[in-house]
């Protein structure tokens, strides 16, 4: 090859690299805010085609926005450039897991080989192997030394699962007990322990553990994963921003209202932002602002149950009973199965001394039979109109369904009093 030809080839190669050939394009259908972020990261890759970090960062951002195939291409390239970096193999495995579980297993193995101390690849590999009914291989993948105590609940839970599958229920029980001690708020591990105790024949202990589970958050079943957290953190999602504004620890209500107002303005047709803003305004002690926010939305859009309910709640706080009742009534017409709308409607109707309040409460109870407060309110309402018999039945139902409800004693006393007074009136 002549020098001239070589130069032409090199120039063409540089041009191609500059154009970003091989760098996955940004999906044009994505949200404009997301596209801007992705385009910046893509440009960084184009400018640094030999940088594993650039490819990885772009891959993570694509992954965060569900562009899995494109993310996989980036991770693959990053892995080629930096084979010792465990993150790229791990994240690539996550991208291909659904379509090619065997490739994912191989990649997780590579990740474990790259960094024996990283827990996530071991755990995910073990989970995949367990799901493939290979408990012995899974146990090996979890990685532990019998001599050393284990201080990670996730590792212990996996060991318990492997041991259970190997028929060693007692060993599994011990591991799960330790895991539950280390992760007292993890619902999944307590449920596992309950199941293992049940299998081991200790039904009472299983019931006790299960009873504890009922106090835990229903979705407390996932384990921390630093790699996946990196991906999640890259997600540019207005809903996520709204959630963050509402749930930040020691939330600055004023700041949250400003953020949510900006989001509601930017997404005028998505009622969820308006609802978030109104909720935050109510929680900040400004129901008047919430009424303005929700009214503005309802004036421009077809009625939405959630927005109507929020306006109704704000109006209740402002003691505007008629307007609140109208909002809740509209909400129940739109969604007759909404128990909370019926309950709130009943409250507004009670304030207005409307005879329909009892029926609204009955509807709320039929829809949510364990709503003890509504049953108590219905009993009180019935007593106030002198229907002692139905009040008695309502309290009996309350007592049988929610034995410890705090209103029961008070209601029994009120019923006795009403009964005595009724009897006295009859004697008179």
């Amino acid at each position, binding site marked *: 090859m002549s020098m001239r030809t070589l130069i032409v080839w090199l120039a063409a190669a540089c041009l191609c690299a500059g154009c970003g050939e091989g760098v996955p394009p940004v*999906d044009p*259908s*994505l*949200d404009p*805010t*997301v596209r801007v972020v992705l385009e910046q990261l893509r440009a960084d890759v184009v400018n640094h085609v030999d940088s594993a970090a650039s490819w990885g960062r772009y891959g993570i951002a694509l992954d965060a*926005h*569900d*562009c*899995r*195939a*494109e993310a996989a291409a980036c991770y693959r390239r990053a892995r080629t450039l930096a084979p010792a970096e465990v993150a790229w193999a791990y994240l690539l495995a996550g991208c291909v*897991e*659904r379509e090619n*579980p065997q490739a994912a297993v191989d990649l997780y193995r590579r990740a474990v080989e790259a960094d024996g101390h990283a827990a996530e690849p071991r755990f995910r590999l073990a*989970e995949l192997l*367990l*799901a*493939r*009914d*290979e408990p012995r291989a899974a146990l090996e993948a979890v990685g532990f030394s019998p001599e050393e105590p284990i201080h990670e609940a996730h590792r212990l839970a*996996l060991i318990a*699962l492997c041991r259970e599958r190997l028929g060693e229920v007692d060993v599994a029980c011990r591991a799960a007990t330790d895991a539950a001690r280390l992760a007292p708020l993890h619902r*999944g*591990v307590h*449920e596992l322990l*309950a*199941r293992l105790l*049940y*299998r081991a024949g200790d039904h009472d202990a*299983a*019931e006790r553990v*299960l009873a504890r*589970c009922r106090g835990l958050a*229903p*979705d407390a*079943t996932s384990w921390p994963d630093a790699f996946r957290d990196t991906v999640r953190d890259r*997600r*540019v*999602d*207005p*809903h996520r921003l709204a959630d963050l504004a509402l749930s930040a620890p020691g939330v600055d209500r004023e700041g949250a209202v400003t953020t949510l107002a900006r989001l509601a303005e930017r*997404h005028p*047709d998505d*009622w*969820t932002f308006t609802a978030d803003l109104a909720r935050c305004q109510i929680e900040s002690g400004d129901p008047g602002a919430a009424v303005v926010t929700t009214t503005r939305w309802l004036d421009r859009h077809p009625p939405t*149950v*959630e927005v109507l309910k929020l306006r109704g709640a704000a109006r209740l706080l402002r003691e505007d009973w008629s307007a609140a009742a109208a909002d809740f009534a509209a909400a129940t017409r739109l*969604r*007759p*199965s*909404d128990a909370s709308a019926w309950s709130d409607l009943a409250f507004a109707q009670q304030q207005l001394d409307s005879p329909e309040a009892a029926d609204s409460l009955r509807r709320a109870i*039929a*829809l*949510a*039979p*364990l709503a003890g407060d509504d049953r108590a309110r219905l009993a009180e309402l019935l007593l106030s109109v002198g229907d002692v018999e139905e009040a008695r039945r309502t309290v009996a*139902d309350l007592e*049988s*369904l929610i034995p410890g409800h705090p209103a029961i004693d008070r209601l029994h006393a009120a019923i006795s009093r009403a009964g005595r007074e009724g009897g006295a009136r009859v004697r008179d």
Partner: protein
Amino acid sequence: MGRRRSRLACAWALPVIAVGAAGGCVDRGDDQPALVSRPPTSTGIRFVNTPTKRRDYPLADITGSGCAITDLDGDGRPDIVAVGLARDNSDGGFLSIHWQGPDGRFDGAPVTTLDLAGAGMGVAVGDLTNDGLPELLGTCVGPDRLFHNLGQREFRDATVESSYDNPAWGTSACFVDYDRDGWLDLFVVNYVEIDDRPCSRTGGGPRDYCPPHRFAPTIDRLFRNVTARSSAASAGPRLEDVTAAAGLAAASGAGLGATAGDLTGDGWPDLYVANDQMPNRLWVNLRDGRFRDEAVLRGCAVDAVGRPQASMGVAIDDIDADGEWDLFLTHLEGEYHTLYRGVGGAFEDRSAAAGLAAPTLPFTGFGVAAFDVEHDGDPDLVCVSGRVQRDAGAPEEPYWEPYRQRGQILLNELGRFREDRRFAGPLDESCIARGLATGDLDGDGDLDLVVNRTGEPLLVLANEAAKGHWVRVRARLPECGRRDAIGAVVTVVTPGRSVRRLLQPGMGYLSSHEPVVHVGVGDARMVERIEVTWPDGSMTRHAGGAVDRIYEIARPPADGLPRGDEETGEQ
């Protein structure tokens, strides 16, 4: 395996024949599909499941609707009920009843249409009045409707007068005599408390259907049959909502699949709920009118690694022929379909060991049925599928294209399953399939399929796979108006093999199967005996006889002596 047979001249249009003679059969080549599509021109069914309003991404459209195969007019021929999402692009769904005529076609009589209050979801079939004519429950997004079967192909909306009241988003339902009083009760699962929030794959990105966790879960409902209390001679069904008293209000979920059967082995029917992206529930019957959820304890709430799956359809069968009921559930792609194997009243996720994990991983499964497709003696699995969200970058047009997926037949080979795509025939073609019902539509002894597909005509599939012999058992309760003995367990014993099946049509996804027990017996030429354990726990032993026929077995009266028309018979 016996010599390969074909079916009774394989003519859909032939009159229904109860006894499948062995004569007149030709071999079916191995390369031929097991299932053959019967187009509308052949069946006379013109039903198309039209979605509601396409551009608003209403969750009901992607949740889809069910179907049923059942004999509603008592003429001995199974009819087809298809649930429509919406009529004329409105929000109101409907039940569309297609009556099978003597010529095997479904257009000899006008289609009966029963309107629903919201987008049409499921259908459940069961005789609430013990008059031998099954009622229909239509579930929908909004208040469900219960239709009283008056006979002569007439139905009356009995929702209000029966006190059936379920205003939530009802999905699957099944009839079960949970208190063993001889009257079928009704169990209905509800999905989520829907609102019209917009969802997208990437926050502000392209719109798509919402995942269920965006909405509040709901409670399921149990209605006790109190028709017997009614004094009116011509009264319709009467129900009492016992949800709270039974303990079912104690836990909520996003229920999509429902079924009932004695899963704990104590002789009393339990209730099982397949929840979407939440742990499933096994409501164990405490025999005093109350239930307690023991799914976690008994190992059928979450998958092998403790994660809740997005459960859709559910089937109960003795998959591995070990005498215990197993559960099979369909799930979202990326999760496998799960086989919970019964082990002494508890369950273990043995999907991978059964060879079911890998082949089902790429599919979002909905309708499911466990039955012996080729009559070799063990139950196979048929699943129909269709995505619920588009992949990243998928074009918005054609609208439904990114949601399409193919169905699967998973053949049972001594407890391990193998997918054979050649076998699946039209089921291998991509569509958005939801409800799936089985029944012997052409009276040739094997089970045919009906699949409800979103945006497409109802798919009717004739089974051409049957190689071995078969037995069908219709178990009836003469003291209950000769209604089907839903909840009965039928055991068919042939030389060297015993097959146990549950008579529970309310299984799968939003659908109801023909209430006749079907068993493939391979090359057996004789049935040694048939045992029926009735819903009240009593047992009848029938002497058996020839294969390839329907046995009609009636529960003897309490004194043990058969009476006139209640005698156990054969057809």
